[in-house]
């Protein structure tokens, strides 16, 4: 097993800088997820870990030792690619046995280990098939077995679930998570799907444009997003973000004043409040009118026209209880309000706002 450290890692492709400067530490046995929109450099980061790409600058450390230029084959990493990358001309058995071929493992042991790995991911009965005869989920399992058969010190998963249909994704999510807990192998999961990241990983590294926006537990990212980007990226349906101006303990949003509490904030800010933290109420709060209704099964999403602008409100419970055009009042708890500085887009820790006029 291994601890991993990125020290000021950079990566350029020709003139294009994909990773400007990245520092990150991953503990032994940890399950870390790289989360970010597609094209932000997640796979690039992962490929540097695997030894497929060479970092252009900085140090990559395995257990404290610099490994920047060590060949992929010497790093003992197991990797599952987005497309699985099964060798099309080999049977499942040969695919799984392939990594052992270069380790001079005796035949009997190869067979034993392949069977063990296949057992682990439950593809033992498919060993004689070819990849094209497998379903997506089975291919995924085979790829996982191939990555695990060599007892990797580091397991890398590049969007492993994105090619599966929704129900299978749910199953594999649980299975991979359970497998990782059992094997205790340091694991890095790349995904653009926040649900995947939050349900599977111990810690999430949220990235945008090659930069780390925030590192933290799923809960941290949800409750205390370090930046506007993280707030917008994590959480579904997406958070309401409203431009405002803070001065003299007051926050003006769309000409409507709110009271500022806690840490003082001044200047241009962004107010964030999650739809699930808004409630309809009989009295108090803000006046609003329902514009649109989106039933989402167990919950209902309303788009309401309020003095602050158009905002999304999530109400739990099946069935819409309000109709478009209805006039209602909404309110929120000051604890739930997030304020971000405009420009730097970072969270103003401890600042809150409430409907009560100051």
């Amino acid at each position, binding site marked *: 097993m291994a601890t991993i450290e990125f020290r000021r890692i950079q990566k350029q492709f020709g003139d294009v800088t994909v990773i400007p400067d990245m520092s990150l530490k991953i503990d032994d046995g940890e399950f870390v997820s790289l989360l970010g929109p597609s094209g932000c450099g997640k796979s690039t980061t992962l*490929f540097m870990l*695997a*030894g*497929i790409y060479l970092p252009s600058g900085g140090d990559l450390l395995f257990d404290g030792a610099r490994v920047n230029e060590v*060949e*992929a*084959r010497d*790093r003992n*990493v*197991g*990797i599952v*690619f*987005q*497309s699985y*990358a099964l*060798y*099309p*001309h080999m049977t499942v058995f040969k695919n799984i046995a*392939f*990594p052992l*071929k*270069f*380790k001079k493992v005796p035949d009997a042991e190869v067979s034993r280990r392949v069977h063990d790995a296949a057992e682990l991911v439950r593809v033992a009965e498919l060993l004689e098939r070819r990849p094209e005869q497998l379903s997506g989920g089975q291919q995924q399992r085979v790829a996982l077995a*191939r990555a695990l058969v*060599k007892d990797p010190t580091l397991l890398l998963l590049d969007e492993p679930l994105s090619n599966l249909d929704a129900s299978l994704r749910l199953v594999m999510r649980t299975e991979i998570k359970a497998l990782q807990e059992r094997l205790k192998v340091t694991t890095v999961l790349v995904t653009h799907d926040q649900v995947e990241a939050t349900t599977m990983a111990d810690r999430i590294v949220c990235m945008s444009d090659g930069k780390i926006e925030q590192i933290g537990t799923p809960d941290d990212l949800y409750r205390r997003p370090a930046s506007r980007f993280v707030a917008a990226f994590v959480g579904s349906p997406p958070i309401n973000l409203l431009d405002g101006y803070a001065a003299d303990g007051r926050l003006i949003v769309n000409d409507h004043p709110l009271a500022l509490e806690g840490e003082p904030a001044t200047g241009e800010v962004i107010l964030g409040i999650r739809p699930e933290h808004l409630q309809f109420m009989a009295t108090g709060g803000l006046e609003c009118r329902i514009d649109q209704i989106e039933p989402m099964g167990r919950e209902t999403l309303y788009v309401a026209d309020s003095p602050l602008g158009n905002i999304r409100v999530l109400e739990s419970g099946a069935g819409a209880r309000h109709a478009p055009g209805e006039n209602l009042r909404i309110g929120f708890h000051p604890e739930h309000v997030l304020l971000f500085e405009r420009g730097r887009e970072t969270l103003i820790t401890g600042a809150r706002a409430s409907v009560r006029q100051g």
Partner: protein
Amino acid sequence: MGATAEDAAIRASARSSMKGRERANMAMFLGPAFLVVGFFFVVPVFVDIAISFTDLGRELRITEITTKNYERAFVSDRQLPAVIWRTLWYVGATLLIFNTTFGLLLALATTSISRTSGTFFRAVWLLPRMSPSVVYAILWVWSVHGGDTSLVNQVLMHLAGTEEPIDLRQTSPMWVIIFANGFIGASFAMIILTSAIRSIPGHLYHAARCDGAGSLARVWHITLPQLRWPLTYIFIWQTLSLLTSFEYILLITGGGPFRATTVYAIFIFQRAFGSSGQYAYGAALAFFLIVPGVILALLLWRISNMRRLLQRPRIEVQ
């Protein structure tokens, strides 16, 4: 009653006009191509067979219908066994050395270096393919002729210190034509295999690297298995063209010296269009080449996946 009859009539006429349009479309779209192909492939094959049973010669007059051309080919032509043996040797050597192996090496090497460098070296190897055969042949003659000004002799005499100029067209004529044809054949394989290699998904290589495969192991375990079908295609296609084309041999050695490079195709050409003008005998000899030609072409057709090539039309109107 009248209405239904009218309906039926309309439907019938619609159907027949559909049929008519179908026929008109077929004639208009497909007709010209099949006329041309029929005139230049089918007719000549039959003409060839017909001529081979006559005594058509220099004067372009037929005086008798005979099988003596075939008797001659099978029994009395003393040169033929040597010609056939030479042909097999020439086709086999060129095919194995250049058209497959060397072409594969070029494709592998140029796709393993940076894209710009790869393109540069491929462009160099396309020069022979891009030049008209006459010019290409001139360059070969200038490079290997026996005078002390040929390129080979300049290099040998000035750099290697050889005393006397050598004449490769006299000493090893077969190798000269094998190389001359091989350069062209290698570039053919290089082009096809390069794009075949390019179309192998990059993540397979990434996976193999993480699985511990070095560069040679990657070529062996990933690239080569994916090149099976293109290599088969090249193999058959190039066998056919080596068997039947003789342009470069004609221009570089003319089949000589003393018939040392007279392979089957040029043998036919010389019989028919050389000083003797034995068209009928040439036609009989050509017939023997048509047979393997058809067989190899059919083989090529068999191994290409027919169903993949024909998608079902999604518009049914004509």
